[in-house]
């Protein structure tokens, strides 16, 4: 019997788990996938938005600003990459200048300080961003905009929560919930019981809520597609937004922590089965729109394209509340700026919603820090040799594009919330994320996974159950 069951291991479930681990509560995360954070938290712009844009008075506005102010410290404690690059919303005509002037007012109402938002002229824009499109005449400058590394943010929160006692059950899809004096939560694998259940299931929010309540909101997936440029392309220094439209924040150009550049997203309601599909038309749409804000884009340097689904709620705001069924808490409709807002609403969920059900004794062993990740491509020559002297595996480079060593891969497998799949390794240490996309190192990553997890190579999957890469051994070969 648990105190709390969290359904879903995206950034929402992850930050809530860590927040709960500050207290003496027995908590478990149930996740349907083979690894954590494989849905919206895996496919987004990675922007820590400043909070300039949500409609004042909404939960989005409230938690965006609070979350933005918490991100740096969280990133430090958990050793999550964080890039304080700033951002700007551009205007290409007088109507858009009007729009960014309105945004300026909105930003102040939302709580940005006067030194955190400023309108800048064409010349200043150019000096900050050499590749800005010629047509950009003014911009709203947002120095507190930053960029995170979204799935590492989720993984780090869960790892730290597990270090502090939280449990994680992967490949457990919740299919039934009964409310007795406690909740009985049935998955496709097992049955779990708890006093409180938190629904943090992203685009599946209404479906899971319906298992036990009568939700007043409807979540529909809204897809966003992206292109990724190679990391040697230094296109922009900060996040470049177009002026907003009815389609939301529009097609953004975002520098990533590891040097890549993201172009996207699109915005389109789709069926659940279509969420992660990229389309020729979507990718064309990006090319057309991005031309308004940024020029000199080297399209021949594309290394990847991908798509993710926003959990858009019929209420047009986050739904973060206890449902009419006591103890069943919805954290739904967490579309953008959900990644940014998560550390703030997680605190709210625990301190305001969960707390009414328990005595909330502090966990005296709680350690807010995650053991540092050794990232060899960030070390100096001498530091490299120090790490090598501690462990020879840090001298063996596996991924040649990103220069990732065996030591880093082994560590990523053996931590709490460790990697179990090829994509799991790539998401944690970037082996296979470079320009050859694993062409050279994938077979070696499979060898290391099989050895560390003590399973056969044939059983190693790409990303999901059933996605095994190797089919069979050839004639005459021994396993």
């Amino acid at each position, binding site marked *: 019997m648990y105190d709390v069951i969290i359904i879903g291991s995206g950034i929402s479930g992850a930050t809530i788990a860590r927040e709960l681990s500050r207290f003496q509560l027995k908590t478990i995360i149930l996740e349907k996938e083979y690894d954590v954070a494989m849905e919206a938290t895996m496919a987004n712009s990675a922007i820590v938005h400043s909070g300039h844009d949500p409609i004042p008075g909404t939960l989005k506005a409230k938690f965006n600003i609070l979350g933005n102010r918490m991100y740096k410290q969280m990133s430090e404690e958990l050793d999550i990459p964080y890039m304080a690059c700033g951002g700007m919303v551009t205007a290409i005509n007088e109507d858009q200048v009007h729009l960014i002037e309105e945004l300026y007012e909105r930003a102040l109402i939302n709580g940005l300080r006067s030194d955190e938002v400023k309108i800048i002229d064409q010349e200043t824009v150019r000096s900050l961003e050499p590749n800005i499109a010629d047509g950009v005449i003014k911009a709203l400058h947002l120095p507190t905009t930053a960029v995170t590394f979204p799935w590492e943010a989720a993984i780090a929160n869960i790892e730290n929560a597990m270090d502090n006692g939280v449990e994680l059950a992967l490949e457990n899809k919740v299919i039934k919930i009964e409310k007795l004096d406690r909740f009985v939560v049935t998955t496709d694998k097992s049955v779990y019981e708890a006093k409180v259940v938190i629904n943090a299931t992203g685009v599946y929010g209404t479906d899971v809520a319906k298992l036990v309540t009568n939700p007043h909101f409807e979540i529909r997936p809204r897809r966003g597609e992206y292109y*990724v440029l190679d990391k*040697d392309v230094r296109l922009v220094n900060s996040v470049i937004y177009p002026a907003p439209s009815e389609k939301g924040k529009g097609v953004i150009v975002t520098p990533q922590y590891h040097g890549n550049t993201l172009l996207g997203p699109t915005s389109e309601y789709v069926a659940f089965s279509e969420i992660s599909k*990229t389309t020729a038309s979507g990718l064309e749409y990006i090319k057309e729109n991005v031309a308004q804000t940024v020029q000199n884009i080297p399209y021949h340097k*594309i290394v990847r394209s991908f798509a993710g689904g926003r959990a858009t709620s019929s209420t047009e705001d986050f739904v973060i509340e206890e449902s009419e069924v006591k103890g069943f808490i919805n954290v739904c409709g967490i579309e953008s700026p959900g990644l940014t807002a998560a550390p703030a609403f997680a605190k709210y969920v625990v301190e305001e919603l969960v707390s009414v059900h328990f005595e909330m004794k502090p966990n005296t062993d709680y350690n807010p820090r995650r053991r540092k990740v050794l990232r060899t491509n960030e070390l100096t020559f001498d530091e490299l040799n120090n790490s090598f002297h501690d462990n*020879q595996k840090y001298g*063996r480079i596996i991924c040649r594009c990103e220069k990732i*060593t065996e030591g880093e891969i082994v560590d990523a497998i053996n931590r709490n919330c460790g990697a179990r799949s090829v994509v799991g390794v790539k998401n944690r240490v970037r082996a296979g994320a470079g320009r050859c996309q694993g062409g050279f190192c994938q*077979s070696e990553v499979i060898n290391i996974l099989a050895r560390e997890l003590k399973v056969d190579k044939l059983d190693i999957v790409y990303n999901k159950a059933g996605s*095994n890469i190797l089919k069979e051994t*050839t004639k005459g070969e021994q396993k």
Partner: protein
Amino acid sequence: MKQYDVVVIGGGSAGLAAALEIKKQGIDHVLILERDAELGGILLQCIHNGFGLKVFKEELTGPEYAERFVQELLEMGIEYKLNSMVTKLNPDKTIEYANVNEGFVKISARAVVLAMGCYERNSGSISIPGNRPSGVLTAGSAQKYLNIDGYLVGKRVFILGSGDIGLIMARRMTLEGAKVLGVAEVLPFSGGLKRNIVQCLDDYDIPLYLSHTVTDIIGESKVEKIVISQVDNFVPIPGTEKTFEIDTLLLSVGLVPENSLSERCGIILDKKTKGPVVNESYQTNIEGIFACGNVLHVHDLVDFVTEESRKAGRSVVRYLNHELNATNNMINVLPKNGVSYLLPQEINLSNLVTPMDIFMRVNKEFKNAEIVISNGDTVIKRIKKKHLAPAEMEKFILKDVDLTGDMIDINVAIEVQS
């Protein structure tokens, strides 16, 4: 810091041939750094035959071809380090590498030979619409899993791209008991050698769909289906869709020279070849840094790699003996009508050793055409060709007699005979 005369980066056929030539010409301190556990490079996974017809006048498999060089290398006592990946090359010719015995090491060289080969273009770089399930991988990775590791990646296979590796894998997987349902090529002509189309597809009744591409990938965890469509100048034509039920989509959509080390060192790359711009001595814009093999431009025949690398090796020795003049008096070798690229891109006449091989590729198919080589406006020579195709690298030779008079630029164009 340890000092070498020459450090060769990469121990594939290019690196081996260059190192051997350098040693044979009397240079002693030569080191080959190879990332893999064995010397030989990509040849090791090419267990089919068809290697060495020019160099050895016999048909060898890839590993046999490599073995001849490795044997000679051992006899000559050339130093090499395996499992040793070069992580940095600096313009002053210092080099950093890493391995599990020595950790991270810095060495310096008087000359450097780049021989890092290439990598395969992959699903990321060509942005196929659809899901991202497992089972979509490059033909070269599937080849490595099969020929080196002993694992088959799937049983119902479709191949996108008619590059040679894809064609070879179509046959190889068929022989291993897989069903290869077809090969789609977006261009109206094949990207692979004619002999591979015949021996790997036609002989096994595997259809080749020219002017077709994959327009959708369907599958949750593993690829289940793909849709291919006919294209008109790269644009899919509605109504021409065909669906195939598969468990593996192999991509054979081209190779890209592996130049991240070179780029970060400040070596200028050619936009077309994606390899360094070199002169007649295979020297890059940084003095003392040379390049040969697939890192320079993608070769379809290993014999050409060997010849090119031996020449590069001889240039290195001339450089070390101070026989190469500094780069003055450069003439450009310029691709004109119908020519995709030429190599070398520049010639310093005072360093030229004739006869000089010029490699080239055309940018589309030609029948009954001429390669026209001119000095400025003056035609130097015309070479008749029955058939020219982008998949087949062409070579012509410049002799002393071709290079008399005032040289301006060498222009090369294709003219179709009427």
